[in-house]
Structures are given as C-alpha cells and as structure tokens.
C-alpha cells in the first residue's frame, strides 16, 4: 500500500495530517519520517494533529508509529478523529486514553 496522507494547514501553528487507507508495517516508518520532517523544521507548525477517521486498517506497526511520535514530541502530536478500526486497537491495547487530548494541549 502506498502511503496515503495529506497535509493541511489549520492555523499558523497547527498542521493537520489526514491519513487514509492502511496504517501498517508498509507505512509506519515513512509515516514517522514525514511527521519528523515537519516538526523538526524551523518555524511553524508547532503541533501536528493526526486525523485517523479514514483509516481502514491499522496494525501494531501503525500503533508503534503513533506511540513513537507521541513519545518523541509529547503534546506536539495529537490524535484527532479515529475510525472504528483504530478505536478497536487503541482500546484493546489500553492506549486510547493516552492519545486523547483531554484539554491538555498547551497551545489551545
């Protein structure tokens, strides 16, 4: 599966990454690289919201990619909408709460 995502600028400091299709072993590493590149660059955006509402399939590699980004960037990486497939995996792995913004975003 070819990486299938799209960047959108929401505000000056916030970019949205919309992911579609599969977030699996074939995509995971490139996906992390793409977010790394955006967040490591000088200047905006200060944060990235990852929209997973259109993800049909996510496997443990996809989960690992999300956990890694969260680990490296903390609250600078947020998860927005999630699809049923994503919710199922996050729930099973006890990580759903971990990705909820819960009003903790310092940039709000």
């Amino acid at each position: 599966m070819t990486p299938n995502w799209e960047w959108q600028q929401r505000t000056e400091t916030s970019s949205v990454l919309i992911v579609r299709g599969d977030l699996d072993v074939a995509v995971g590493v490139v996906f992390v690289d793409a977010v790394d590149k955006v967040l490591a660059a000088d200047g905006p955006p200060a944060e990235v919201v990852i929209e997973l509402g259109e993800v049909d399939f996510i496997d443990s590699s996809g989960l690992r990619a999300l956990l890694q980004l969260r680990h490296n960037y903390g609250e600078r990486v947020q998860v927005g909408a999630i699809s049923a497939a994503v919710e199922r995996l996050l729930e099973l792995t006890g990580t759903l709460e971990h990705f909820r913004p819960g009003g903790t975003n310092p940039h709000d």
Partner: protein
Amino acid sequence: MHDHFALALAAGQLGTWRWDIATGVTTWDVALEQLFGLEPETFDGTMDAWVALLHPDDVSHVMEVVQRATAERSPYELEHRVVWPDGSVRWLYCRGMVTLDDDGNVTGTIGCTGDITARKQLELDAERRIADAERVAARERLHRERLEFLDGLNDSALSATDHRELMRNVAGAAVPQLGDWCAIYFLPEGATGPEVEVAHADPDKTVWAEELLHRYPYDSDAPRGVPAVIRTGQIEFVPLISPESIERAIAGVEDRALAEELRSIVNALQVTSLITVPLRTKRGVIGAIRFVSAESGRQFDDDDVALGRTVAGRIAEALENTWLTDQQRVIAGTLQAALLPPRLPDIDGLSVAVRYWAAGTATEVGGDFYDVFKIDERRWAIVIGDVCGTGSNAAAVTAIARHTIRAAATHGAHHHEVLAWVNDALHAGNRDLFCTATYSTLERVDDETWRFISVAGGHPLPIVVAADGTPTTIGRPGTLLGVLPDIQTTTGEVLLRPGDTLILHTDGVTDVRPPYELDPETVINIAIEAAAGSRTADDVATRLGQAVHRVLPIPDRHDDVALVVVHILQPSE
C-alpha cells in the same frame, strides 16, 4: 492399379515388348520407345541399353523381380522409374509374362508397359502433404508442451517449501518433454560443491544417475560440461554427440580402466544431445540447468536452447531466494525454539495444548510467546504474549518478558504486579518495542473446581467456553507493556468446572487486515464451535487451528498466531 492399367490400354498409350532368351534380343514397339523417351526405331534391343535407361535406384529391384519371375515361370508386375535422355524422370507400370516352349522351357518374356507418372505424382504429393502436416503437428505439440512447461514452472517454484524441493519440482517437470534427463546444479554461497537434482521419467534411472553423481565427484576445474558453464557463464550446446566426440572426451582420461568404465556408462546412457545453461542472478552464476536427450534420440535445436535460457532465467532468482529463505528459517526456527518452553507440564485434572503457527514466510523470529509453569502445589501460571516487531530485538523483548513473568510469579507478586514488572523492565530498556500479554493462573479449589484469574496488558482477553457452550471473556483490556511509565490493568476471575474450556490466543485481531475479519466476535464464534463436543484440549486446538486457517490462510499472515488451550477434565478422566 489394374484400373489404371486398363485406362492406359484404352487410351492406347501402351508399349509392348518381347525378350527372346535364345537370341538375347529384346524387341520394343514404337510406343514403348516413346515411354522410355526414345526416338522411334532407336532402341538397339540389348539388355544393357534397357538397364541403362532405368533409374539407378530402381535397377536392383527391377532385376530381382524379373529374375524371380523367370525362375518361377510366373507373371509379374512392376512399378519403376526411367530416366529419359533429356534427364526427366518418369514412372512406368509394366506387366510381364514368361513365355515357355512345348517342353516347358523358358524362352523369354513378353509384356506391356504404361506411363503412371501423373498418378505417382499425386501419390507422392499426398505423402508429402501428410508428412508436412505431421511435422507441423509435431512442432505445434512441442511448442505447446514448452508453453505448458513454462506455465507450470511458476507453480513448481511457488509450491516449493524449500530450495531442494524447488529444484526437484523443476527438474521433474522438465522430463520427458524437454529432454530425457534434466539436472539442476546449485552452488550455494560459501559451499564447496554443488547441490544436484536429477530427474528422468523413469525413477529407477533417476536413482542410477544419483549413484553416478556420488561416484564421480564434481570437478570445478573440468574443461567442459557443467563446471565450465558455471565458471564461464557460457551456454554449452552440443547438438549431436557422436562416437568420435565421446572418444575425444575419454582420451583425456589417463586411467585406462576409468576411461573404459566411462565409455560404457556413456554408451548405456545413449546421450545424443546436450544443453547446459548457467543460472545467473545478481550475485553471479549460481549454478546450471542441463537438458539431456538420450534414448528418445531427439536432437536439440536452437529453439531448445532458447527455451533452456528462458527456464534458467525464470528459476535462477527463485532458487536463490528460496535458499536464502531456508537459511533464515533455520536460524529463526532455532531462536524461536529457545524462546518457547520445551514441553508442557502434566497437570492432574487439566488437559493442556498449545499451537504455534509462524507467519507466512517464517523467515523471522516471530514475536509470539507462551509459557505454562508451576507456581506452587496448587497453582499454575499461563502466559501468552505478542511482541510487536520481529527479529533479534523482538527476540530480546520476548526473553525479557518471559523471564520477568516467571520471576515475578514465583516471588508471589499479584497479577497486576506481574505485568507492572514486565512494563518496568521493557520501559527501562527503551527499545522502541512493546509487548502485549496476559498473565493468568489456575488454582485448584477442589476435585472439580479451578479458579482462573487473569490480567491483560494490551492483549486479547482469555475466552472461556463453558461446558454448555456459553462464552465469556475474562478481565478487561489493559495498557500494553513497555511504552508508558505506568499501566492500567483490571484483573478478572472465574471458577471453571469439568467440561469448561479456556482459550488464550495471540492475534489475528490486531494484525489482520480485512477481508480476513478475525474480529473479537468471530474469534469467539470459532472458539464456541471448536470447544463444542471436544473432550481434550488437543481436540479444541486442532479444530481452532483449522477454523483459523480457513478464515486466514497461512501465506496471507503477517504475524504469528499462538494458542494455549486448557480443558477441565472430569475427575474420573
């Protein structure tokens, strides 16, 4: 034939002759002279002049028939060719009789002759057309066989589970269509000699060839044949192996006894034609495929060489890849075995079974693990887990998880503490890997009752199928292990009685892509079906395995699947 003769008679195109033995003179009429392409009245009446006009290839046959008829005093019929003075060839039909005197002595012969060139031409044309058609048909057949063979090659290669089987399949598919024999030589990287698979349509001959290969070791410096092809990367094509060429090859052998033995083997093989094509990959020449024509007597041509080249091109990469896979599988299998318990303990009153299916390619150490061990006289621990990722890092995490759990459990840690220990151990390692697991215990309450207590960390919950078929999942999902500094888990508990079945599994759920819907509901339905009527854990595991294979064929798997099944036995069992 007689009709034709009658026709000729009626048309008046008949010549006649009379041969007188006494005088030696043969008398021809003008019509007969015309049939032989002579001007009227120019035949000199001698036997020699007649014989000279016959087609050289037909002389002996004509003389034989005439002499036999004379000796037997019987009439005769002949079809033969004559060569006219202008060089053209005509077909004649003649019918002769032996003449006798009153005493029954042979006085000569008499007969008539007609021209049958036109009919003969038709006959020959028809024969040629049939021969042409047969040749075309044979070529078509060969062509089709070749295409079928090439089609079948992919199947042969794909269905092979290791590289030796691939070699066997391909060589076996090649005979007898592409040659009476086919041999594949493969030189794995770092090997001193080649691995060889030989095939012949007759299995006895295959065995014989294998014996020969054992007897005459591979000589990588040999000036011709497979070693030369592998060394030089050049195709060797010998369209026709003549006795002289065999002698030339044997002349180089100094040991005369050996030379004699080789000669008899070569003669017994009846080799007529040979093609040897190098097997080339990005690494270089890794071997050769050889087609041998023998007892069929077929001579290979350029088409065969082209086909050999195509075959070599198709199998070379596949062969090397399969071999590499084999090597990885050996390593992975060894590692995996070290990470799983060598045998399950016998537990009075319980039937326990485990299953482990490596992912489709089986080339890497999978992340699944399980363990069953004794905590004390009344309690047993059951662990099942899945490390995200494969390879040596995953193997390290598996080892840490298994040993941490054993240590925590035998030190009397509570269920949630056991998983917390694992989380701490993995989180400290900071390996960018995580693990999901359930830690469960079975405690004997009385002869018929067991208390099952379980806690899950990011892992599918254990399923209990009661004796009456009612399914329950035990506990609640908890946080996966090794990522977050603290985990949230919930311990679940249930009492099990004889006939109840407990099923712990690794995924299918997190790493299975649609349309293979192994969602939790499907898994539970499969569990209910497998447990129904099963009397041992092994039965349940086998049925579960079959059901899972149906939903998710092994080649399509990206992840290992592991199962632990416990069945509570009746006290009498």
